[in-house]
């Protein structure tokens, strides 16, 4: 999976490209570490090119969301596919994130 992080002022946009399965989550988690320690701003997770997410991916999303919450920042999940929206719904994640 490809992770492209683009920071402009206080808004950090993270483009996730490909499948966020369990092995991919391990990589993505490393990419997310700097974001977690500096989550006071707005983080936009651009999922327009993410085709799949497993529970380990959801964990990373949740960890980031928790970090942002503790630092006063916010996480926006953007452009999720219908299939992934289904997964978000099943897990109650629709209520935890701001979805755009």
């Amino acid at each position: 999976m490809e992770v492209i992080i683009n920071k402009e002022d206080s808004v950090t946009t993270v483009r996730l490209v490909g499948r966020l399965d369990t092995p991919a989550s391990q990589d993505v988690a490393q990419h997310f570490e700097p974001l977690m320690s500096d989550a006071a701003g707005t983080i936009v997770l651009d999922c327009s090119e993410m085709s799949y997410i497993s529970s380990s991916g959801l964990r990373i999303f949740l960890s980031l969301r928790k970090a942002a919450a503790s630092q006063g920042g916010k996480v926006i999940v953007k452009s999720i596919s219908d299939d992934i929206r289904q997964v978000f719904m099943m897990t109650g994640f629709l209520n935890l994130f701001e979805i755009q």
Partner: protein
Amino acid sequence: MEISDNLKTLARKSAGTGLLLIVVAAVTLEATSLIQYFSSQRMLKQEASLRAESELRSTRNQIMDIVDQAEAAVHNSIWITRWCLDYPDSLAVVARRIVEENPSVMGSTIALVPGYNKKLPLFAPYVCRTADGTTELKSLATEEYNYPAQEWFTEPLNYGFGYWSEPYIDEGGGEVLMTTYSVPVMDDAGRVAAVLTADVSLDWLTDLVGNVRVYPDAFSVLVSREGKIMVSPVEELNMHQSIQEFATGAKDTANFNVLADGMLSGKAGNVSLKQSRRERLFVFYAPVEKTGWSMAIAIPDSEIYGEIRRMSMLVTILMLVGLGMLILILRSAAKNQLKVSQLKEKKDRMENELRIGHNIQMSMIPKIFPPFPERKDIDMAATIVPAKEVGGDLYDFYIRDEKLFFCIGDVSGKGVPASLVMAVTRSLFRTVSAHEKSPQRIVTLINESMSDMNENEMFVTFFCGVLDMTTGHLRYCNAGHNPPMVFTDKIEFLPAIPNLPLGILPGMSFQEQEMDLSYDNALFLYTDGVTEAENLTHEQFGEARMQDVLRMRRSSQENLEAMQKAVADFVGAADPSDDLTMLFIHYLNDMQPDETERHLILHNDIQQIPQLAEFIETIADEIKLDQGLAMSLNLALEEAVTNVILYAYPEGSDGLVDVEAIMSKDKLKFIISDSGKEFDPTAAPEADITLGVEDRPIGGLGIYLVRKIMDSVSYERTDGKNILSMTKKL
């Protein structure tokens, strides 16, 4: 309230019935007694009348004897009198002869008709008996007597034949009652010449008539042609009063006049004279011929009916006593009936409550057949026909994670305790089997619970099975129950180790057995209510008959009905002694021929996960799944496999994960197995997805997603392997 009202109504009803009964009994008794009374009275009156008539006849005969004697004495002397007419002096001799030769004749005269003998204008020599037995001759031809004017002289001449005079008191001859018989005597030329008489004493009449006593208080009366009372018990009346005179002063004059007229007209008959309000006098009368007399016998009705009246009094008293006793008996019977009905009501209520309790238990077990109408792979039928008393039979079944859990059981004994134990057993089965898939574990756990609390020494024979619907693999465990029958290519008893019934031995280890069922195989579970059903001659239905019924291949429902009918026909009119419980399971999973399998073997390396995506893609292509469903299945499979890769094997060691996909037209099943340490992911607590960001745990979503996506998920540990099966209906 309602009950006590019912009781009151009942009491009223039975009291009413009692009263009615008493009235009917009283009326019947009274009617019987009345009929008897009246018919007896009629018979008694008839008898009295017969007795009176026969007495009248015999008395009359005796009178007639004497009368005839007197008449004969007179008649026999007519010829000699006629012969002596020309020699008047000899007439006295004739008269004497009559007296001397006839003891009843007290005196006799031959009185010449005045003018017949020119020399003797009046001539009447009279011979009479004296007190000393000799005879005395007198002459009646005196101025002052003037015999031609006397009745005894004139009447026979008027009539021209023999005449009995009115009785009279003979003042000259000792004040005795007399009557005179007189006949006219003609001379050879046919002229009336004299009147020949015989005075007959009627003393004997008083004795004769006075002694006629058909009943102690009955009496007889003799009256003359003109109604003079000749003989009666009342001395003063005799020869002093006529019956007509007496009738005027008597009670019930009207009827008395009828009597007087009847007697005076010389007829026979009877009259009833009212004496007082309660007393009547029955009078039977008959004429005494020739003399013109009439004799009557009077009988007070108390004489006739006295006995029957005393009897009827006694009968009435007895009847009253009987009725009283009847009332007492009925009252106590009514009381008893009330008691009995109260007891019965209590018993009914209890039985009703038991039945309700039992029905509640029965309602918990599946009773609607077919139980799984949407499933084509199973055909089931079951029934419990309860015996009179609530019993302790049970069966139960349900499907969880594509496994059919089923059981049948028979609690020892009957009634409430059995039915309670049945409820407990059934509820234990549900509770325990919710977490256990092994029949052996289910049976063991139920046994532990039941042995612990079993203070009443109740036990349950129990058979438990778990049928894997997808594979037809059957695992079962028996606890002392009749072995079920299994229908494969033949029909036989399922080999079942008996073990011990539930509730006997805590810590008992039960043995589990298994077999594989294929398409169209079936099981028949039953309680001994089937095999031990008895007919009127106490013969048992038995296993042979049971097997006979099952010879034919039929649906479960048809089998059930056939068996019920066979048992019912066999039992006939006998009371069913035990619950009749049957459970048919017909396995009809024919997926095997259509199945396709795909296999994927992974190492316990997380980097192998992407292979799952390819695996799913192949399958999705093959069975034409849409992309969304494919992604969901991928997710579920990944979560399950990740679990194994991460946790089953010790870190750093190499292990395999076997992923098997079984595809059929209506479902897709994944079986994930590994040889790692025992781990049941389905035992994990359910994730709470409603929690907020702060409270939400990071993990725990994997198995949650698996459950969400798949229709059934089950785990088992077999042969050192963790086997997780997941099915998705298509």
